[in-house]
């Protein structure tokens, strides 16, 4: 049933390709502006087109993208096709109904009236305001203009900066600094105090909210939509104020983290392949933030986003080693495969003689030395390797003790590992 109805819609609304993690693939220069969960797409006037129920609506600078709840496919309405956006009606009758935003769309020669039913407890006025703002900007038309303008702006900046040369320049700078600091600091501290007073009230309210959230999460597992909606709200609110919100197995955390989590899963795939299937969390943090440029994410954002991966069906996972090192690992990249490669490396004649150091393993496996060391340690705890600690540092040898029969310690099976070791180590002399 769903397949049949969606094909009718597919003829009308263009589909949007999604990445493997369920994020829409954006056009060049397209920026995400607003996210709305639980939105229905209705065409009330024209009953031949079925409605799309309960999806995620993404307002970008170029389009309105509607993603199915299962994140399997998506449709988009280019903003250029929106003729008019009706503001949400304010009347007694509409006060208790689910908020609706109507758009007049002209697409592919057809003119339709599309209604977005906002079931997700979001403010329709805010959405409408943002929609109007984005439509007014007309970002999709401004692609070439933007480039020229940014060059001009850069030149202007260079010209305006005052040359600070010579002693007078330095003195002048000092003077300015002094004046500025003195004047504004007085006000600043006063304002800061006032601000903090208000913040304290918020924190008290937040504490109550947080306790409620925690108790309701642990107490009941059944959920009606009302409850879930307000819990999501609370999470988002706590996040925006700057108070740690509890992300448990039941809750999905703030919407921001959910989207970030999907974005990360996409971003991290190519570098992960290059690094051999495993990367430390610190590296990912640096890479991601450098790529972002502005609006960087905090380490906690990253951790939350990674923790959410187990709820979605993505190809990467977060893993913590005993030493506390956290890494991101490709799900396909299994430990057994690594162990087999390590053991084959440790059985080479060179390795039988001199052992394997973390840097050797790193070179062969193609991963960072710190991670190679973790792998060697894990292999040792599984009984595949033995360590040798000397002034040269750590070296690992293949575990021969398993080969030695306790009843007959001098027996040596040929061909066998013990035999190979004996022949390798006695050759050099």
């Amino acid at each position, binding site marked *: 049933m769903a397949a049949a109805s969606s094909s009718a819609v597919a003829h009308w609304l263009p589909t949007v390709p999604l990445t493997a993690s369920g994020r829409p693939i954006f056009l060049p220069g397209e920026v995400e502006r607003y996210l709305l969960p639980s939105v229905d797409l209705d065409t009330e006037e024209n009953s031949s087109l079925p409605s799309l129920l309960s999806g995620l609506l993404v307002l970008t600078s170029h389009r309105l993208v509607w993603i199915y709840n299962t994140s399997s496919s998506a449709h988009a309405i280019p903003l250029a096709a929106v003729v008019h956006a009706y503001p949400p009606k304010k009347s007694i009758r509409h006060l208790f109904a689910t908020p609706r935003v109507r758009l007049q769309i002209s697409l592919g020669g057809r003119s339709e009236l599309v209604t977005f039913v906002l079931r997700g407890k979001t403010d329709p006025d805010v959405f409408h305001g943002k929609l109007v703002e984005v439509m007014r900007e007309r970002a999709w038309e401004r692609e070439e203009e933007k480039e020229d303008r940014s060059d001009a702006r850069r030149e202007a900046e260079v010209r305006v900066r005052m040359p600070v040369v010579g002693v007078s320049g330095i003195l002048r700078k000092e003077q300015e600094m002094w004046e500025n600091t003195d004047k504004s600091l007085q006000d600043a501290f006063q304002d800061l105090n006032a601000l903090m007073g208000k913040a304290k009230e918020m*924190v008290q309210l937040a504490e109550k909210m947080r306790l409620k959230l925690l108790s309701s999460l642990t107490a009941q597992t059944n959920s009606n939509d009302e409850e879930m909606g307000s819990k999501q709200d609370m999470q988002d609110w706590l996040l925006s104020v700057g108070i740690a919100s509890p992300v448990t197995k039941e809750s999905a955390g703030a919407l921001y983290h959910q989207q970030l989590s999907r974005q990360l899963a996409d971003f991290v795939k190519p570098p992960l392949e290059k690094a051999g299937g495993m990367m430390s969390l610190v590296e990912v*943090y640096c890479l991601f933030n450098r790529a972002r440029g502005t609006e960087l994410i905090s380490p906690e954002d990253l951790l939350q986003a990674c923790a959410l991966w187990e709820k979605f069906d993505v190809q990467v996972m977060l893993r913590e080693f005993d030493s506390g090192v956290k890494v991101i690992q490709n799900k396909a990249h299994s430990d057994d495969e690594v162990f087999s490669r390590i053991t084959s490396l440790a059985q080479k004649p060179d390795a039988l003689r001199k052992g394997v150091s973390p840097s050797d393993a790193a070179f062969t496996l193609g991963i960072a030395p710190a991670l190679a060391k973790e792998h060697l340690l894990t292999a040792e705890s599984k009984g595949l390797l033995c360590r040798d600690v000397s002034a040269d540092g750590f070296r690992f040898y293949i575990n021969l003790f398993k080969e030695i029969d306790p009843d007959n310690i001098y027996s040596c099976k040929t061909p066998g590992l013990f035999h190979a070791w004996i022949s390798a180590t006695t050759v050099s002399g």
Partner: protein
Amino acid sequence: MRRRPGISGLQSAAATRDQYRLVGENVAKIRTDLMKEQLETFRSQLEDFARKHKNDIRKNPTFRAQFHEMCAKVGVDPLASNKGVWAELLGIGDFYYELGVQIVDICMATRSTNGGLISLQELCTLLCQKRKAARDPVSEDDCLRAISKLKVLGSGFGVISIGKRKLIRSVPTELNRDHNEILEVAQGQGYATVEQVEKTLSWSSGRAADALETLLKEGLAMIDDGHRDGKRRYWFPCVAPISVAAGSDGLGIDS
């Protein structure tokens, strides 16, 4: 609400329970609205504050430190997430997260020389060199805050206090008390010998030798056997007065 006997009594009891539940939910709903309202007022206050003092926060490290202290007292964490009102309106998030990235870079670059322990002073010097573009000044307090944020990523980022100095650790090696005391001894001249350690700390020779060997293995110490008296010296680059900053050009740290 009188209690009535019989089936109708049960039904009315169920009905009243439902009504109470609805009222309870409404109270919760009102709370949500109250939350939103509070957030709006707070947000506008913060916007005013930001308009007047955003520059102060960026340019004045003392003010910044004061700001952080007050936030901590109140119980909010302005650096918790990029999505919070603090990051959005004050722009304070980007400053610290970028600082975090730069600190990680510097630690990685110097790891081969100092084994993962770098003094806070040296880190700040290298940071200032890296941020040469005369942007906003960075204080030691800022570094410490950025590092405390990095801690959640695992991989052993942390701060150790040795005497008056602070050392930044970027490897998961655990340093026990013995090691810390040796580092204190080494602070004076940048190196320590087994005898020095034994005399200053009154340890047995085995204990001193063990601890020094462990530090050597972890890569935090370097051996020097070239002195005329033949005694082996253990040098610690992280507490040595000769800083790595002097030779930073050769380390390939890009600005």
